[in-house]
């Protein structure tokens, strides 16, 4: 199975659906993402799977390596902040959407994205894709 970028941040439920996890500060009640290191102060919490696009851009040039781990071959990709049901706004890669359809407010749902690495491996990260009406 392809490794996940972080198995505290991303897991799959019994039906094989992805679950994105944040952590709730027990004292302040603040929800944080990515989940903080294991600590008594925080409890892991599944984040809403649906949200709306809060802002976006397109990464048009290949980022420098390090820190970027992708291969030399590069294709532009979309990035956005997604407002997850008013719980938290999460930054993510966007997938399955034409750049020309990116617009603040469009409904999105959680999915996964397999990313090739320059070292030949593949890793699975979280991403958001357009959600159909009523889906």
């Amino acid at each position, binding site marked *: 199975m392809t490794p996940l970028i972080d198995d505290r941040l991303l897991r799959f439920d019994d039906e094989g659906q992805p679950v994105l996890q944040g952590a709730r500060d027990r004292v302040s009640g603040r929800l944080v993402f*990515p989940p903080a290191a294991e600590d008594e102060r925080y409890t892991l919490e599944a984040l809403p799977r649906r949200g709306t696009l809060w802002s976006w851009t397109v990464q048009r040039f290949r980022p420098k390596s*390090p820190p970027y781990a*992708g291969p030399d071959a590069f294709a532009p990709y979309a*990035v956005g902040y997604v407002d997850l049901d008013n719980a938290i706004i999460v*930054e993510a890669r966007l997938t399955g959407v034409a750049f020309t359809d990116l617009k*603040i407010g469009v409904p999105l749902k959680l999915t996964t994205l397999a990313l090739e690495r320059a070292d030949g491996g593949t*890793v699975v*990260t979280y991403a958001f894709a357009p959600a159909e009406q009523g889906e």
Partner: protein
Amino acid sequence: MSDVTIIGAGIHRFGRTPGRTGLQQGAFAVRDALASAGLEWKDVQFAYGGSDAAGNADTMVSELGLTGLQFINVANGCATGGSAMFGAYVTIKSGEYDLGLAVGFDKHPPGAFDPKPADWGLPDWYGETGLMLTTQFFAMKIQRYMALHGISTGTLAAVAEKAFANGALADHAWRRQPLSAQEVLSSPMVSDPLTKYMFCSPAEGAVALIFASERKARELGLPAVKLRAAAVRTRPPGSFEVFSPALDVERGPSPTTLAARAAFEMAGVGPEDIDIAQLQDTESGAEIMHMAENGFCADGDQEQWIAEGRTRREGALPVNTDGGCLACGEPIGASGLRQVYENYQQLTGRAGRRQIEGAPRLGYSHVYGAPGVSAVAILER
């Protein structure tokens, strides 16, 4: 408590200077500043200095002279220059010394910055999956701002056009070639909605400023510009900052808002009193948003302000009169001090071809950077 003045300012031209290290550019700026005031290195009682990526400021004593002065290195990311100036400000205000300097310099390789996630308290995957880019942050901040407040792409281009027009008149600027709004718009898209010429680039350069108590300046018989306020502030809850994997739903003000309020209060003046302003313009959108965050206009008013040319050289509030970061590039350690240098030159009538008419009296400068820090200074002739 002493009043703090600036009595000299020096600069090493920005851009690229092969064969001269960042530290050498720093020492060059110090000598230039001393010459502008007719002073010698041995007259300097203390110094604060720093760079982000070009070495330890205090090693420049080997080039400038081993006078034994107190020299404190400052490393505060994008606010390095602003923090060095704050150090000089409080040192003189407290009465500890009455003549010293702040110097900032840098020398970055071409291309975007390549941050390490661990340095920012972030997991490796954030960088590995292609999310850790300052350019993405600036693009997404202005993208949302444009949608909420009705700012057009043409206004982004107008800001860059103004920057290159002003830079063409500044000897220390890097990009001296005027560009039309159309050329800015049709340059390659870097991170939507921002094109290549809407972004500044990492660069090289150095600035030094000499500070003195008002009494000392009088003794020396030097014209002095008062440093009426210097404030450095970090981010409050709910601000939108570079390298943020998540944001709180409840949005809040920015470090700039806090630093601006503090500086205006310290100086006892308001935004309407300011004659010229140097505002952080990492990209065109940043200048637009910072106009509002610093209190010069309401969110959304920029569209009309810029259409009317109010921030151009001949406008009511000239902004980034030397072309800002867009025309000068951004050597991190020097950038914030360049803004103060520019205000000093304008207020003392030494800005040459780019001199703003009407003898400006109050100059405002604002630097902003990662991970959410702003420094504001207000100068008065």
